[in-house]
């Protein structure tokens, strides 16, 4: 009788270079999620707002300014690419603790122009980029892919197949930014950004927001919302453990493995029980390494897994049916809740042409960080009631 549920969830379609404010974007998603639950802003006991790039700018309070200043506690979170999922998890913990009955978790980001990320200026004026390797996100995740290649012989073509698959999935998602097939030849011939990731193997910088209303079991029953509720079976968060190379290359592998182990344990399920997965495909190379990190296949088998089609729509374990970050776009703070929205669509049987038949269990994973900044990983397991 102490389970926690999502009773309303939605996202705005991600867009490039919006001319509205971050508060308006967040407010839009908040109102959509409230409407999905049939609730109003006065029903909320707290707001957990994830935003990375304006972490010092009280984004949660500004969202409340847009949707109703009820004076509830507002907690603003920033945690690399796990920012939105961290907001969701803090909201989950607050309800689980019994402190609040109904809270809103929101993720919102306005990315601006230019998409390489990283490489912030130094106070002494020294420009590290190109002199001390690269601090761009594409380079960082390319190195992760090349590490997989040296261990297991994974090929450029196998990495490229991830983009072919996810863009194919996006043709079934009206909310994806890019809804276009990209054949293998096109992906491989696209502009090389950072070998082996071409432009079509990089996620897109967009503005976006997604929100979820979270409630206690008692409240869900009182409101009569159990028929559309989704149970949170696991909510886990990790930071990077010590690895001998972590001053030279940010760890995204151990941080995910540790998080996945905890998530499977607390949910009491294994990777074989999952009906679908939304994982952090910020770059095509990332999806490959995370197949193994999440236990969807054995170590060294990720290249074969993408080749087999088992992670594509209709396959044994479909991954990133939404089109993933490669097609939807990746508004950092919003991503962690947007992938929960994709799971919720399937668990409710509302995913349209990409629906996984009889979907019962889904896993959502986000993982990010940066050179010299360590990493964060959040994993949620959601279950159809």
């Amino acid at each position, binding site marked *: 009788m102490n389970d926690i549920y999502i009773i309303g969830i939605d996202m705005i379609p991600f867009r490039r270079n919006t001319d509205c404010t971050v508060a308006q974007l967040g407010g839009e998603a908040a109102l959509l999620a409230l409407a999905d639950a049939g609730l109003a802003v006065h029903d909320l006991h707290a707001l957990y707002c994830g935003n990375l790039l304006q972490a010092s700018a009280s984004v949660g309070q500004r969202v409340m300014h847009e949707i109703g200043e009820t004076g509830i506690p507002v907690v603003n979170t920033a945690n690399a690419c796990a920012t939105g999922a961290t907001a969701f998890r803090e909201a989950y913990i607050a309800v689980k603790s019994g402190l609040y009955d109904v809270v809103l978790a929101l993720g919102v980001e306005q990315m601006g122009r230019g998409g390489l990320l990283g490489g912030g200026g130094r106070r002494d004026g020294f420009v590290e980029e*190109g002199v001390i390797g690269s601090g761009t996100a594409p380079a960082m995740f390319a190195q992760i892919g090349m590490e997989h290649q040296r261990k297991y012989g994974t090929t450029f073509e196998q990495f490229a197949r991830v983009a072919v698959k996810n863009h194919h999935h996006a043709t079934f998602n009206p909310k994806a930014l890019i809804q276009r097939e990209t054949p293998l030849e096109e992906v491989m011939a696209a502009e090389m950004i950072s070998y082996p990731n071409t432009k079509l193997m990089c996620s897109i910088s967009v503005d976006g927001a997604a929100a979820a209303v979270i409630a206690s079991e008692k409240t869900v029953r009182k409101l009569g919302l159990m028929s559309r509720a989704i149970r949170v079976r696991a909510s886990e968060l990790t930071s990077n453990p010590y690895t001998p190379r972590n001053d030279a*290359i940010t760890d995204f592998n151990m941080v995910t493995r540790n998080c996945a182990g905890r998530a499977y344990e607390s949910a009491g399920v294994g990777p074989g029980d999952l009906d679908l997965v939304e994982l952090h495909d910020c770059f095509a190379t990332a999806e490959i390494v995370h197949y193994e990190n999440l236990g969807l296949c054995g170590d060294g088998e990720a290249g074969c897994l993408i080749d087999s089609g088992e992670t594509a729509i209709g396959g044994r374990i479909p991954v990133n049916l939404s089109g993933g970050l490669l097609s939807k776009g990746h508004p950092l703070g919003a991503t962690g809740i947007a992938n929960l929205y994709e799971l919720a669509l399937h668990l409710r049987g509302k995913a349209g042409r990409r629906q996984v038949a009889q979907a019962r269990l889904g896993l959502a994973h986000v993982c990010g960080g940066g050179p010299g900044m360590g990493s964060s990983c959040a994993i949620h397991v959601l279950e159809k009631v």
Partner: protein
Amino acid sequence: MASATIEFVAARPLIQFDHHGNPWLQGMRCSNCGAVFPGQRLACGSCGRRDTIAATRLAERGKLYTYTIVRRSFPGVAVPFVAAVVDLEGGGSINGTLLEAEPDPAKLPVDMPVKVVFRDTGQRDKEGRHFLSHFFVPLTEQRHE
């Protein structure tokens, strides 16, 4: 490396200068768990002990662990370049730019031996000092620097 006319400043804290002005790479070694890592920390990143870590000089030879060939970077940054991760002999891994190697995956074998070199980056601080950085270059049998 140092001369009477050029004053250098380290581009990264792990680059230290000896009393002759010669650069070296500083790391820490933990006598409790054996961890070796570049730079300085308050406690061992691996075991958390504070009393068992001490500064150490990192090796200037190592092997190419992973890399990428960067073809698009920030405006004004010359491309392509090889952004490399190198495991140093005796422990410690550092990232940096690999010079004097073709930016071609076929020419960058796994565990390629490299050496660390220190060079003027061409960038200067407000006092006009030259930023000195470490770089990697392929280590070949013929090369005796």
